[in-house]
């Protein structure tokens, strides 16, 4: 097993809203081996994105464990791990493709993507070479390659986002609606990229709006339900 999630729950305590407690999801458990894809389904508001953010530690889980076995065969609990360890895993092993691309202003599309590979220890030339291949494949016009993605359309940004996440070949990849803003041709090209990465052994956990896509990619599907209204319990 690469990742084993046990009884993971998340609620938010909004101190600035008189201590309102908002439950995101409750008691989620699953496990995943290399090369497997776990699809997350459920209505909006069921906590799908929140679950991914907890697994990536952008959100602090309220309860439960996320056991992750790293490339060296060491296991750590991402839910409570030291921040330096989480940063190391993000840098070297765990990727995240979100709905919105956090562009770094004034860095060209080509460099943004290549840097993602360089950060994982590949030579710069190899990064640029692979970046060009993928930009070509996802049909980003050449005229845009040297421009910053902050000026791109939503769909173009999202394709850069996908390439950026895929190119680093993470061991574990979280996908949050990566194809939502793409036309069908780019979407299917993106999905074939994701499939290739999976076949190379990357484990993935993904949220897809389109149930057909979700079912076709997933080895298992975890359905989340909309959390019950907040109750007085801890």
């Amino acid at each position, binding site marked *: 097993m690469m990742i084993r999630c046990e009884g993971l729950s998340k609620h938010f*305590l909004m*101190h600035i809203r008189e201590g309102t407690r908002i439950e995101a999801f409750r008691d989620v458990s699953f496990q995943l081996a290399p090369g497997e894809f776990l699809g997350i389904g459920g209505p909006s508001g069921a906590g799908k994105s929140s679950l991914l953010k907890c697994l990536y530690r952008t*959100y602090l889980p309220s309860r439960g464990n996320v056991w992750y076995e790293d490339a060296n065969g060491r296991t750590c609990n991402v839910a409570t791990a030291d921040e330096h360890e*989480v940063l190391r895993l993000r840098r070297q092993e765990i990727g995240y493709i979100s709905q919105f691309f956090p562009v770094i202003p004034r860095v060209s599309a080509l460099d943004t993507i290549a840097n993602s590979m360089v950060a994982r220890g590949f030579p710069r030339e190899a990064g640029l070479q692979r970046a060009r291949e993928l930009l070509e494949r996802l049909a980003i016009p050449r005229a845009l390659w040297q421009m910053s993605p902050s000026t791109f359309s939503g769909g173009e940004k999202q394709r850069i986002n996908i390439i950026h996440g895929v190119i680093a070949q993470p061991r574990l990849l979280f996908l949050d609606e990566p194809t939502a803003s793409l036309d069908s041709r780019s979407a299917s090209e993106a999905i074939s990229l994701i499939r290739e990465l999976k076949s190379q052994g990357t484990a993935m956990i993904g949220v897809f709006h389109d149930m057909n896509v979700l079912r076709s990619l997933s080895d298992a599907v975890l359905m989340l339900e909309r959390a019950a209204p907040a109750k007085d319990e801890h």
Partner: protein
Amino acid sequence: MGDTAASPAPAPDAVILAVENLEKRYGPGCESCLALTGPDHSTNVCPRCGSVTALRLISFDLREGEILGVVGESGSGKSTLVQCIYFDLDATGGRMRFDGQNDAADVTRLPRIEKRRLRGRLMGMVYQNPMRGLRLDITSGANVAEKLLEAEVFHFSRIRGRAQSLLDRTEIPASYIDWPPRTLSGGMQQRIQIAKALANNPPLLLLDEVTSGLDVSVQARVLDLIRELQREMGISMIVVSHDMGVIRLLADRTLVMKNGGIVEQGLTDQILEDPQHPYTQLLVHSTL
């Protein structure tokens, strides 16, 4: 999951700076100071003795190549913290251990000469106000040279060459090396400060509100420069800012300060998206 034999843990990144219980107090202090001031009391002033506790029980470590953000409103102690680390201010308690040292040293017992040596060899500082970091009426080159002398580089042509290449690296036109900073724009003064701070090739760079007061386009260029330098040189940084955008762009981890104490610390994305402490929630939700 013990089904595979675990290989030895990868060596963690070196600790560039470890700070333990750093404290800065103005006034005589009393036994109640720590108990009656700080974030929970929303004051720095001790009701018993009137002393001001500007920093209290500050502990953290900074790893090689890491950027640590420090946020908090005015008066929270952010600038005091970096100034105590840089020995501009004398901390009144606590211990610090720099890269290459075996033990944390009691900061109140460090001899002046040792502070000067640590600062000359290991640290660079960029202040919000260029007037603090630069002498505005001597040439830009001489400003950079001053830092090199502090780092015990004495050879004239080496100093001149190094100053030239640093100013070049921070995008100051070559002809400006003999101009005093007073005659240059705010953005350029800030870049000269950065060149000066980097002169001794420090493993640790302290940046105190360096982009505040610059207009957005100039701010953007200074931030780009900092990011590039970090990537090229792998330098560790402590970035103090009240601007969450600056922190989001630069910092891996972030400390949140209030009334001289740390109320929360965590991964920068966690601090911004899932703040735990009421004060951090207020701070994050107050940003535009």
